[in-house]
Every structure is written in structure tokens, then in C-alpha cells.
């Protein structure tokens, strides 16, 4: 019974963070038609850069966080422009360059920061939900994630750049006929997805230990969620995030954290076996 409560509460929290993380991932995935394998590294990068700002450069938190986010967004843009865009017509090249960038980051982090987990400051205090003590940090995360989801929806449906992103994700040829430049749209998605990776990185680093390899598992989760939900299908992504978050947390509380690592693997395998084109439509 106790476990069920934990699963319910933390499943919801995790689902929400996965949703935000996946939305950022799906922007580039939808437009470029290729998964950005550096996305997990961006998540870790923000955690480490905030850590460095706080502990080595003694920057105050209210400065360290926005600077780190901007830095990650800029790096995301730089990666996209330099290693994804030039090879976009040749998927295997993009896989190689992006995985290479991810490995470079991983090595840099472990050379410079070591393998010992680091953490960022937690938002203080706890609140009791259904009799379970929950860190107030989770409430902060919930607020920020909800705001970011709504912001992205507003951006995609109300602004011209957002509409262009949706058009290109739908069809490159059609959008070009409408006078949209897909490559410029791609640039916008690199930037925005960088912000989304960065924010989730900063928010989760205090709760999850930050290690050089910590970015992989969210990357796979995002891939599984976006494919399951259907690329460009926001509602599908929401449902898929819920499914993923609850499956993962159930595994954590029932089977233990070690075995929960295989959650994304199991999910991708299930999708592949039963619905290779996504549960909710257009998945490549």
C-alpha cells in the first residue's frame, strides 16, 4: 500500500519531467527526422556547469542558473550547426558525429570532474502528500515543468516560428513550397531543445546524482517516449510520458533501482515488437 503511494506520487513527478525533456528532444527529432544523440550530454553539461559556477567561481545561484542555461542552449546550437546540419542528408554520418560528441562530453566530464557523483543545492523543506514526505524541490519542478509545457504549446501554436516548426515536421517538401526554410527552422529547434535539456538538467541534478554517464538513460527514455507518442503528437507524448514514468517508478519500488535501468530497453523492445510506427501515429 505504502509502495503504491510512492509509485503514484513519484510516478507523476517523473512523468512530468520526462514530458518536458521529451518535448525538447522531439523538436529536433521531428524536424531533422533523426534523434539527437547529444541531448543527454546537454542535460549533464548544464548540471556540471552550474556546479562549477557555484562551487569554483562562487557565482550566486540566481546568476549561475540562467548563465548555464544560456550556455547549454548556445552549445546545443553550435553542435547542431556544426555536426548535425552538414550531414543531415546522410543519417549514418549524423549518428557517428553525434555519438562522438556525446562520448567527448562524457570523457571531458570524467577527466575534469571525476566519476564521483556531484549534486546541486536542493530547494529546502518537505511537504506531506498522502502521508508521504516529499521534498519541496519536487513541487518546484512540477511548477516549472508545467509552465514549460504550456510555454512550448503556446510557442508551437501561436508564433510564426512555432508554426513553421510544425510545418517542417509534417513535411519538408510541403513547407519548402510554402516558402519556409527548413534549415533555419532546424536552427531554432537546436536552440530551444537546448533550453529544455538545460532546465531539466538543473532541476533534476539535486535529486539524481550527476555523473558523466547520467545523460544516457534520459536520452533513451525520451526516444522511447517520443516514438511511442508519435513524433509531433503532443497528446501522445503526454500519455507516453505518463506510461513511461509510472512503469519506471514501479520497477524502482518493486524490483529495485538496479533493474530499473532496463526500463527504456524494455519499452523500446515492446514498441518495436508491437507497434513499430508508434502507438499514437507517425513514428519513424
Amino acid at each position: 500500500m505504502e509502495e503504491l503511494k510512492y509509485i503514484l506520487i513519484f510516478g507523476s513527478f517523473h512523468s512530468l519531467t520526462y514530458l518536458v525533456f521529451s518535448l525538447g528532444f522531439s523538436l529536433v527529432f521531428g524536424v531533422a527526422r533523426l534523434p539527437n544523440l547529444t541531448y543527454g550530454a546537454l542535460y549533464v553539461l548544464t548540471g556540471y556547469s552550474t556546479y562549477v559556477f557555484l562551487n569554483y567561481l562562487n557565482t550566486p545561484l540566481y546568476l549561475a542558473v540562467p548563465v548555464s542555461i544560456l550556455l547549454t542552449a548556445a552549445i546545443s546550437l553550435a553542435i547542431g550547426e556544426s555536426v548535425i546540419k552538414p550531414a543531415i542528408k546522410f543519417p549514418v554520418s549524423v549518428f557517428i558525429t553525434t555519438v562522438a560528441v556525446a562520448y567527448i562530453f562524457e570523457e571531458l566530464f570524467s577527466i575534469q570532474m571525476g566519476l564521483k557523483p556531484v549534486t546541486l543545492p536542493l530547494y529546502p523543506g518537505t511537504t506531506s502528500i498522502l502521508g508521504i514526505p516529499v521534498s519541496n524541490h519536487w513541487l518546484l519542478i512540477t511548477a516549472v515543468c508545467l509552465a514549460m509545457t504550456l510555454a512550448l504549446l503556446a510557442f508551437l501554436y501561436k508564433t510564426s516560428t512555432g508554426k513553421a516548426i510544425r510545418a517542417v515536421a509534417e513535411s519538408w517538401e510541403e513547407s519548402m513550397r510554402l516558402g519556409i526554410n527548413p534549415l533555419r527552422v532546424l536552427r531554432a529547434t537546436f536552440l530551444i531543445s537546448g533550453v529544455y535539456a538545460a532546465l531539466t538538467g538543473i532541476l533534476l541534478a539535486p535529486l539524481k546524482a550527476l555523473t558523466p554517464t547520467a545523460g544516457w538513460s534520459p536520452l533513451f527514455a525520451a526516444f522511447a517516449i517520443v516514438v511511442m507518442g508519435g513524433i509531433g503528437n503532443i497528446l501522445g507524448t503526454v500519455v507516453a510520458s505518463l506510461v513511461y514514468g509510472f512503469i519506471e517508478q514501479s520497477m524502482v519500488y518493486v524490483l529495485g533501482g538496479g533493474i530499473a535501468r532496463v526500463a527504456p530497453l524494455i519499452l523500446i523492445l515492446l514498441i518495436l515488437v508491437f507497434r513499430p510506427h508508434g502507438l499514437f501515429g507517425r513514428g519513424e
Partner: protein
Amino acid sequence: MSRLAFSKPSKLKRVGSILPALFIAAIYMLLPTFGLRGFWLDVLTRVNIFLLITLSLDLYSGTTFYLNLGVPFTVGCAAYSLALLNRYLGVPVEYAILPSAAISLVLSLVIFLPSLRVRGAYFSIMSLLLPIVMAGIVTSQPFSLYLGGEGGITYSPLFFSYARGLPVKERAFFLQSTYFYISSIAAIIAFIVSYKVAYSDFGFMMRSVGQDELLAEASGVNTVRVKLVGFLISSSLASFAGSIYAAMRPPVTVDVFIPANTLVPPLTAVILGGMGTIVGPTIANYFILLVYEALWDVIGRWRVVLYMCLLIVLVLLRPQGIVYYLYTKLKRLVSSKIAELTAGV
């Protein structure tokens, strides 16, 4: 009429082109008798075995363009199977090589089968994911209890029981040189098999899948079968690499699943040598791995960063051209085909 197309290459000429390769292979195999031993003989043994991994990668990913980042998974499963067979069933490593390679092959096939059936990014994502999952599993509870955790599993290596009967002075060199010969023979067999497959009709079907899978499917190629069989051949190379390496170098640790150890050098060799050419990556394998080994003392872990930067530059310089210089080679191959054809008409 093209002048090139109709000259039939003579048997003598073909033997002539193989001769230098045979010569180099012979000299190479004789290195221990010329006095090579110690650290660099061990390194060459390692590099020989890595050729199996490089060829595994080139044979599948170089032709089908499905990037198999999961090579460490196959290698690692074979290595751990060998260690586990030895620890829990008491199978001596000499007899565990074949079964452990088979176990790893079956495991890889079963887990990759769903992603081989479809087009798109699934395969590469799955392949990237698997070694990371395995590295997590072998170091975390409760699996680490049975899989040796961080320290890995140790056992007595290949031919160790025989070597114990030798005078103490000779033991080390006996093992070293035997391992070197075994790995060299494995490398030569792997090269011949890969070459034959890559330039057979089947190999060209794999290439057609890589260049336009939908077109291949719509013009008669059973793409799923081609991918499956190609993956099987390629993975058996990686499985043997894992088994043989583990048999020679206990203990088996989580290191086998770490891309910096078992993926970065072969991948760089494949790209540097030219995807799908087999010959190029083979030559590059020796160069890339020897340099990688030597770099450890100079720049330590930065060698991974260096190699990955090299990889990015190589790929970006020729985003589609990584296959470009197959051209001249293929032209010759076709001309001999045409010669056969017109001779029959």
C-alpha cells in the same frame, strides 16, 4: 565501348596481387621468433583481436549503414559467458570459447531481432543503449553479486594448466607467443571471411540496403533476411573476439562494455579506412590501435577525445564520401564480371 570493361584479369595477376599480402602476413606471424616479446607482443595480440571487432563493424555497418554501436554488448556478453561458464559450470576456458561465442551470438540476435525487422533509427538507438544497460547491470545489485561487480570475474587463462608444466623461465613467453599466434590466425580468418562476404552478391545486397532500402525491397531484395544474415555473420566475429580475448586476459570486468575500450578504436578505424571496404579498415585497425595504445602514456584518457574529434572531422569532410573510394575497386570487379559474361555469350 569502355576499354576497361572487357579485359579479363589473368589468374597469374590475381595471385600476384595476393602475394605481397601473404608475405606481410608471414613476416608478421614470425615476429616472436625474430625476438619480439614483452609489452608490444601483448599489444599486437590485442590489436589482432580488435581486428575482429573492426571487421564486424565494417561488415555490417559499413555496408548496410545501420550503425551498430552495440558491438561492445556482443563482445562483452561473449566475455562474460566465458567467465561464467568457467566459474559456475567449471568449463575450462579452452572448451568455453565456442559455447560462449554461441551464447553471445544468440543473445545479440534475440535482442536485436525486433529492430532488424524495421527501417529507421531503432537499430542504432538499441545498439547504443545495450552496452550502457549492461554496464549498469553488471555493477549494480543484485547482479553484481554473481557477476563479480567492479572487480570482475577471474579464472586461469588459456593453456595456463599446460604452461604450469614448463620451466618458470619459459612460461611467460610460451603463453605470450601462443596467444599471439592464435590471435593472428583468428585475424587472418576473419579478414578472409569478411572480404569474401563483403564482395559477394550477398555483400552487395547489404550495400543496396544501405544505399536505398525501400528501392531494394521494391526491386526484389529480401531486406529483412539480408539484414538478419549480415548481422549474424558480423556478430559472430564480435562474439569470437570477446571469447578469445577473455580466454587470454582474465579477469573479465565491466570494462568490456565501455565504448572507450571496445568501440572507439574500431569505429575510428572503420571510418578512417573507408566504410565497407574491409581492406581499408583492416590496415587502419593496426595503425589506429597501435597509436591508441601508445597514446595512453602520453595523454591518458584524452585519447578518446582526440579520436572522437578525428572521427567527426573525417565524417564531416566527406559526409557521403566515406564510401567514395570503393569506386575504383568496384570498377575492376565489374570488369571481370563482364568479361565472364561476354566470354559465355
